[in-house]
């Protein structure tokens, strides 16, 4: 009987739609969720000799899922590229610096999975519909990857290469003093969730799975949990100033973050056992320069004396130039090639 924790997810970037990548670029452990073939069965509603339904047929068969993996310094780049669509790499040696930005189109990806050592599948022509990076106190960072694909294929053997990427993923305390709001570290930030929704949907065609996957409007949202150490941010959101006057009315303006760097700048840097940044550098940096606070929840009294803690929701909007979100990954990977 196969154990449920045997398995992995592999990924590669396709050079073109319709042609699966010939080999995996990374293979990573799965911490939750999965990627599956899907099928829709539609009933035939014609009349029959009795009350029993006439029959049914397979209307669609595709692939879909939301596997969660650990945010590993190397493989994370493939998923960031899949979600954002553009990448640049600089550096002649380790550490290489990969900059991922939003582009009009996303790449087609091929995924593979092994479940229990008994079922092996390949998922060509996939795109990422959502990428959620979760970093929370006491936990390793995870990446939940929403995937939709035009088809699935059974394989008779597992993908054995490359080697599974193991090791210590980014953890929350790798971001110590590097979670910046308006250029200022917020040391009480005990969790950050970054959600990139790409709006990717299947475009139907003349086949079973669909003709293509089209990108839609991008949504970028950050949610943080942090102490409320004073009411300044709350007053700025609701009354337009950190120090509004007595009987100040609610503001009609949005609270767009300023600072230098503007908006949010979040960075996780791998450190050695002594807490010193490792060399060559292994880091993830996320910058969103144009940020509007959507909501602050938590300005409420409690009955147990716990400190006030806010859940702050930030939305990213298109800046005057450049990308609404830029992710910079420094690692040992020279390139994320399409094949």
């Amino acid at each position, binding site marked *: 009987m196969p154990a449920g924790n045997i398995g992995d997810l592999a990924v590669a*970037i*396709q*050079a*073109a*739609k*319709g042609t699966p990548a010939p080999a995996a670029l990374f293979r990573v452990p799965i911490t939750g969720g999965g990627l599956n073939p899907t099928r829709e069965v539609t009933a035939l509603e014609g009349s029959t000799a009795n009350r029993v339904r006439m029959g049914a047929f397979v209307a669609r068969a595709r692939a879909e899922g939301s596997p969660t993996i650990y945010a590993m310094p190397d493989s994370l780049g493939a998923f960031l*590229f899949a979600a954002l*669509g*553009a*990448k*640049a*790499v*600089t550096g*002649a040696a380790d550490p290489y610096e990969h*900059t991922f*930005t*939003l*582009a*009009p*189109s*996303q*790449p*087609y990806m091929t995924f593979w999975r092994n479940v229990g050592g008994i079922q092996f599948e390949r998922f060509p022509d996939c795109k990422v519909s959502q990428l959620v990076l979760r970093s929370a106190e006491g936990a390793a960072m995870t990446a939940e990857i929403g995937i939709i694909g035009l088809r699935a294929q059974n394989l008779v053997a597992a993908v054995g290469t490359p080697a599974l990427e193991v090791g210590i993923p980014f953890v929350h305390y790798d971001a110590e003093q590097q979670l910046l709001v308006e250029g200022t570290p917020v040391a009480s930030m005990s969790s950050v969730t970054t959600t990139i929704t790409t709006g990717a949907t299947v475009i139907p065609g003349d086949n079973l799975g669909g003709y*293509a996957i089209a990108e839609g409007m991008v949504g970028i949202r950050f949610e943080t949990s942090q102490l409320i150490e004073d009411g300044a941010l709350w007053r700025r959101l609701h009354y337009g100033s950190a120090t509004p006057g007595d009987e100040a009315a609610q503001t009609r303006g949005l609270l767009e973050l300023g600072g230098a760097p503007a908006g949010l700048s979040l960075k996780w840097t791998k450190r050695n056992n002594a807490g010193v940044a490792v060399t060559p550098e292994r880091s993830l940096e996320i910058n969103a320069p144009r940020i509007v606070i959507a909501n602050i929840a938590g300005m409420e009294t409690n009955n147990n004396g716990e400190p006030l803690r806010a859940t702050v929701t930030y939305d990213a909007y298109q800046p005057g*130039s*450049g*990308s609404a979100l830029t992710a910079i990954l420094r690692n040992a990977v020279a*390139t*994320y090639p*399409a094949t």
Partner: protein
Amino acid sequence: MAETTGPAERPEGAEAGYTLRRGEPSASYGYAAADGTYREIAADDAGVVTPETPEDEAILNAFGLDQVREVRTPSGGTTTRKIADPEPVVPAPITTEGPADDQAATEGAAQEGD
């Protein structure tokens, strides 16, 4: 200011009217084109990136790469690519007609403007 001497022939993308960009030497820029194909543009040893399609240009713009101004040297037919140097601002010549006194009066009036 980096200044490099490149080949005598202009790059293909430049001939097509796309603006050369300054990246970093040996950098590469990859993206998915609208038809689902993957495109990669590599900088040359001098860091100059040559876009060949409008999509290339849009991606390089998104990365914020500076434009490269291409100039011809007067001798030898060599193309010199001068990087990230904005076009010089040349003031428009002032042409006036009429006697010199009228011109002075006009200039004086102009100096009193807002």
